[in-house]
């Protein structure tokens, strides 16, 4: 079940990693493990030099799809708290795009859940990246490998 322990934020603003992890840990003395994933804008993609990207999303559906993913994760693993932040708008190289943080009693659950959430966010949450490359603006193509990663969890 998605509970008050889950926090999903779609925002233009940057976020602070320590701050997010504090919110997973504070008044939470039974979860010994915290796993985080942070994704940033890389300077290269598909061999092209990237200078920035713009993130568009589908308000309403984004939150709903993430809640579904978190609910599924909670059914599969024993998790304490989950925080997901995804930024939108224009982001420059090196800027943070996405954060997933999971606390749990045992590390295996936090590792699996964090990776699962990222894998499904990648193929189900309605975000789209447009890159500003040396050849101009270009919408990113979805990667087949991301589909495979998500399918991998079915087995």
């Amino acid at each position, binding site marked *: 079940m998605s509970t008050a322990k889950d926090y999903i934020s779609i925002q233009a603003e940057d976020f602070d990693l320590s701050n997010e992890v504090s919110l997973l840990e504070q008044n939470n003395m039974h979860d010994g493990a915290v796993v985080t994933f942070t*994704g940033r804008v890389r300077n290269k993609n598909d061999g092209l030099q990237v200078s920035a990207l713009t*993130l*568009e*999303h*589908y308000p*309403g*559906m984004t939150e*709903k*799809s993430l809640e579904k993913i978190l609910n599924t994760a909670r059914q599969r693993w024993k998790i304490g708290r989950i925080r997901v932040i*995804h930024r939108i708008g224009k982001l420059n190289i090196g800027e943070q*795009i*996405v954060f997933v943080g999971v606390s749990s009693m045992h590390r295996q659950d936090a590792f699996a859940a964090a990776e699962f959430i*990222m894998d499904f*966010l*990648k*193929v*189900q*949450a*309605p*975000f*789209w*990246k*447009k890159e500003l490359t040396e050849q101009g603006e270009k*919408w*990113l*193509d*979805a990667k087949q490998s991301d589909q495979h990663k998500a399918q991998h969890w079915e087995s």
Partner: protein
Amino acid sequence: MIKVVFFAALREQLNCAELTIAANEVSTVADIKKQLANKNEHWQQVFSNGALLSAVNHDMVNAETQVKAGDEIAFFPPVTGG
């Protein structure tokens, strides 16, 4: 009426973010897609892209999904967030 919204590359290709269609003319997502494709040659070509995804009321669905008045239908390219 049914509200139809488009996102990302698809919105740019169509040069359209949102439109409405009469609910009595369509019963499935596939019907809507067909009606949109029939607008003109350009839309026909854009909607021939088999990779396009669709959602009804914020849930990802397939072409056979039923639609009704008041629904919000979205079409968009495969997602690329994260």
